[in-house]
C-alpha cells in the first residue's frame, strides 16, 4: 500500500492503495466513474480509454504506479467541456452511436486525435481510431461524425 497523488478530472486526489492495481479498477470502484468500460481487458478495444496528461491510454493496461502526480481525464470530466458538446452532437447527428458501449472510448480517442491534429483526413481518423472497436456502427458513421466535429468545432482544438 502507498499514498499517491494525482489529478482526476481537474481535482487533486490522494488515495492510499495498492499501486499494482489497474487504473480502470481504481476509476470505476474507488471513484465510481463508470464511463470507462472494461471491454476486452487486453488493450485491444479501447472501451476503457481515458486521457493521461492529455493523451489517450487504455486504463485497463495502466498500473496505478504509472499515474503518480499525473493528470487523468475520464469521459465524465471531459463532458464538462465545449469540445465534448461539439463531439457529442456530431456523433448523434451522424449516427455514430448505437449501443453506446464503445462511445466513451471513441469520444476520448476523438479528443486525443483532434488535440494533436485538428483537421484530420479520413485516413488519419482511421489511424486515430485504430485502437477502438465498435460492434454496431461499422465505423463509417463514426468517421463521418469526427469529420463533422472537426468542421463544426474549428478553432476549438
Amino acid at each position, binding site marked *: 500500500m502507498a499514498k499517491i497523488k494525482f489529478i482526476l478530472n481537474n481535482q487533486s486526489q490522494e488515495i492510499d492503495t495498492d499501486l*499494482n492495481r489497474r487504473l480502470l479498477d481504481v476509476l470505476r470502484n474507488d471513484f465510481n466513474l463508470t464511463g470507462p468500460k472494461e471491454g476486452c481487458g487486453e488493450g485491444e478495444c479501447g472501451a476503457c480509454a481515458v486521457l493521461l496528461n492529455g493523451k489517450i491510454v487504455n486504463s485497463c493496461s495502466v498500473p496505478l504506479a504509472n499515474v503518480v502526480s499525473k493528470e487523468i481525464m475520464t469521459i465524465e470530466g471531459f463532458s464538462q467541456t465545449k469540445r465534448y458538446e461539439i463531439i457529442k452532437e456530431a456523433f448523434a447527428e451522424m449516427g455514430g452511436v448505437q449501443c453506446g458501449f464503445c462511445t466513451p472510448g471513441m469520444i476520448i480517442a476523438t479528443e486525443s486525435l483532434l488535440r494533436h491534429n485538428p483537421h484530420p483526413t479520413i485516413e488519419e481518423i482511421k*489511424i486515430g481510431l*485504430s485502437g477502438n472497436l465498435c460492434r454496431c456502427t461499422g465505423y463509417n458513421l463514426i468517421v463521418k461524425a469526427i469529420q463533422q466535429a472537426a468542421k463544426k468545432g474549428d478553432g476549438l482544438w
Partner: protein
Amino acid sequence: MVEAYVPKNLKAALEMLHEKSLRIVAGGTDMLIQNRNRSGLPINFKSDILYVFDLEELKRIEEDSEFLYIGASCSLESILENKLTPELLKMTILEMASPAIRNTGTLAGNIANASPAGDGIVTLVLEDALLEIQSINHLRREKVQDFIQGVRKINLNSDELITKIIIPKVTFDKAYFKKVGPRLSDAISKVAFAGAIKFEDTIVKDFRICLGAVNIKMVRDSAIEKKYIGKTKKELQGLISQILNDYSPLIKPIDDQRSNKEYRKQVSLNLIQEFIENL
C-alpha cells in the same frame, strides 16, 4: 502481497534491483495482460515490481555522430514524434500499435518481452541496434539480436536494467517495414518484414532483410546478405529465386491461433520478392 516500487531516479532503481528480487515494468501494456487477474483485483504479478516508466533519465532521445540513443522509458509515441528517429522505425511504430498503446508502451519493453512476433524487434535487428544495460556497478552493451536468446528468453541479470536503445546511424536508399495482421494496429503479427538497401553508383553496398514471427528469433542472416553485395540492382532482381531459396530454410513458422505455417512461409517469401522487385 506483491510490493510496488516506484523509484525517484535511475540510481535508486539500480539500488533496488541490487538489493531485492524484482520484475521490471515500464508502460505495462504487455506485463499487465500477461498477469491479468479478475476484474477489480490487483494485477496478478508473481513477484515484487519495479516501475521504471517515469524515470526521467531514461526519457531522453539523443545523438552523436555515430549513434542515436533512445532512453528505455521513452513511450513509442515520443519516439515516433522525435525528429531524430529514423523513418523505418517510425513506420514500424505506426504499424505496431494503436495511439493508446503508443502512449504507454516502450520499445525496451517490446525487446524485453522477447516475443518472436515483437514488431519493434524486427526493425531494431535490421538496424543492428544495441542495448545499453546497467547495474549498480556495471555498464555494458549488447546487440539486440544477441540479447534475445529465444522465446521470452533474454540475457538480463536480475540486477540489470535496459537503459538505452542504441541505433547506428546508417542511411539507406530504400527501407521498408510491412506487418501482416488482421487489423491496422493492435494485432499481433502473423508475419513482420523489414528490408533495407543502399546503392553506390547502382552497385549494392548494403543489403539487409529481417523477418519476424517465423522462427523463435528474428530471421536475419548476414552471410546471405553479403553474397549479394556488389551486384547491380538488375543482377539482384535477376537472382530473386536464388535469394528466396537462401531464405527459405530459415523461415520455420508455427501454426497458432493467428495463422498457420504454410501461410506464414509463403507470405514471408512474397514479402522478400516484393521488396526486391520494387527497389
